[in-house]
C-alpha cells in the first residue's frame, strides 16, 4: 500500500508539484505497476546473483590531457532561458541579508 504522503515525498524529491487529484490518480496506477514489478521477489534464482550495472565491461576512458577548442561562451548560453553576456541568470536562492545567525553550525 502506497500512501498519499509517500507519493508527495517522492514528488518533492523529483521536483514535481502534483495536485491532490493527480496524486490520487497516480496512486492507483502506481500500486498496479509496483505490484507487477514485485514479481521479481518470487524469483528465487536471483538470490545468489551479483547485481549487473552494465553489459559492457569498461574501465574509465581517459582523454589525453591536451588543450582543445571548447564551446564559445555565446554558444553555451544560446539556449539558456535567461542569461547575460557571460552567466546563466537564475532566481535569487539565498537571503538578501546575511546575519551571523544563518551561519550557525557551518
Amino acid at each position, binding site marked *: 500500500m502506497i500512501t498519499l504522503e509517500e*507519493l508527495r*515525498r*517522492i*514528488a518533492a*524529491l*523529483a*521536483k*514535481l*508539484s*502534483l495536485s491532490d487529484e493527480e496524486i490520487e490518480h*497516480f496512486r492507483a*496506477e*502506481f500500486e*498496479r*505497476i*509496483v505490484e*507487477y*514489478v*514485485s*514479481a*521479481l*521477489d518470487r*524469483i528465487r*534464482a*536471483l538470490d545468489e*546473483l*551479483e*547485481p*549487473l*550495472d*552494465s*553489459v*559492457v565491461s*569498461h574501465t*574509465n*576512458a581517459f*582523454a589525453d590531457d591536451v588543450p582543445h577548442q571548447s*564551446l564559445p561562451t555565446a*554558444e*553555451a548560453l*544560446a*539556449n*539558456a*532561458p*535567461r542569461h547575460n553576456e557571460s552567466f*546563466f541568470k*537564475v*532566481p535569487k536562492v539565498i537571503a538578501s541579508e546575511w546575519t551571523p545567525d544563518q551561519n550557525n553550525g557551518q
Partner: protein
Amino acid sequence: MVTETYERFRQRVHNRETTCAEELERALMSIEENGHLGAFLTVTADAARKSAEESDTRFQRGTPRLLEGMILAIKDNISTRGIPTTCGSRMLERFVPVFDATVVERLRHHGAIVIGKTNLDEFAMGSSNETSYFGIVRNPHNPDYVPGGSSGGSAVAVAARMAHAALGSDTGGSIRQPAAFCGIVGFKPSYGRVSRYGLVAFASSLDQIGPMARSVRDVALLAHAISGHDPADSTSSEQPPIDLHIAPLAERPRLGIVGEEILSGCSTEVRSCYEEVCRLAQQAGYRLVLIQFDSMDAWIPTYYILATAEASSNLARYDGVRYGFRADNDGNDMMTATRTAGFGTEVKRRIMLGTYVLSAGYYDAYYRKAQKARRWIVENYRRIFSTCDAVLLPTTPTPAFRIGEKTSNPLAMYLNDILTVSANLAGIPALSLPAGRSGNGLPIGVQLQAPFNADEVLLRIAYDIEQCLLARATV
C-alpha cells in the same frame, strides 16, 4: 514518394533515370501529402536542396560517397546542429543544439541528405507515439491505428516513403516495435557499437541508436556508416564498424524458436505469421531448435525498474537553468514549477517511479534486485546461444492497436514491450523484419536476436530470411 529502397535509387541515378534533386522533391511532396500522419516535427527543405545539388555534382563527377543522396529522417531526440531537437517535449520546444550527434556527423560525411526531424513519444517514453507534446503520429496503413513508439515518426516517414531511411533510438523496443507496426526493417545494434554522443539520454545503459529502412541491405549500409568507436561516448565499443557487406551464409545456421510460453501471449494472427516464418526457414534449410526463456517473467519488471531509475536521474538535468523551458515563476521554487509545466504525464509517471525505486528504503527491494535480474537475463541468453546461432521470435504480441486504446492503462501499454525489452537488458543486437499482414491489413513483424557483438551474423540471417519471404510473396 521516394524510390522503394536506397539501393534501387542509387542504381537509377547510375542509369541516369533520376537525380538526387528530383528524388528530394518527391520526398518533400510525400511529406506534404502525408501531413495528417504527424511524422515530422521539422522539415529542413532548404538545406536538403543544397545537399541534393552537391550529391548530384558528386554523382556526375563519378565520386559519390557511401550514402550519397540518401534521404534521411532523424528522430527528434538526436542532436542536430542548428536544427531544433525537441524530444517531443515542451521542455525542449525551443532547444537548438550547438553540435551534431556523432551519428549525424558520420551520415553527413558519407553524403546522406537530412530531410528533417521526426516525431516521437515525449523523451522516447512510450510505445504508441501518443505522448508527444506536439501531437500524435498515425499509422500510414490505417490512420486510426498507432504507428508504435517511441520512434513512430521515423517508422512512418520510411513506411510512407517520405525518406529512404531514418534513425531511431531503442531503449526497450522503440525501433523494432514501430518498425513491426509500420511494415519496415528496424535494427537495434549491440550496446556500444553505435555512439550515443548527442542522443538525448533516457536510460543510458539501455539506449541505442539504430537504422530503420525498407530492406535489410539498406539497414546494413546505415549500420556500417554510423557504427565504430567514438571517444566522445565512454561506453563506445572498440569493435570495428559493423561490416558493410552481407557475406553469404556458408550453411544455414541453427535458429532458436520459441514455444507456448511466448506464443500463448500473442494474437492468433501474430502466432500464425510467426509459425509460417518458422516453416519457411526450415524449408530453406535452417535447423530449428526449440529454446526456453526461463527469465521471461523478469523481463518487464526488470526493464521498468532500471529504465525509470535511470530516467529519473537523467532527466534531473531539466531544471530551467542552462537550456530548455523555464516556468515564469521567479518567486517560488523555479525548478519545480519548470518541471511541472515542462513534462507531460507519462514522463512524470516514469520520473516518479524511478525516484521511488531509488529512494531510501526501496533501493535494495527494487533497483538492486532488478540489477540481479539483469544478470540472470544475460546468463539465460548465454545458455540459449550455446544451442543456436540466432533466435527468432515475434516482435510484438499483436499488430498495431487503435489510437487511444491503451492510453488509460499504463501497465497494458508497458506489456506491449514484452518481446523487445530483453535484448536491451542483455545488450544484444536485434532486428524486426516485416513478415505478413493481419486480416485488416496491418503489418506484422518477426524479430531476430543474436549474441552480443554478432551484429554481422544477425544481418546475414535477416537478409537471408527476408529473401525467403520475398520469394514466398512472388510464388
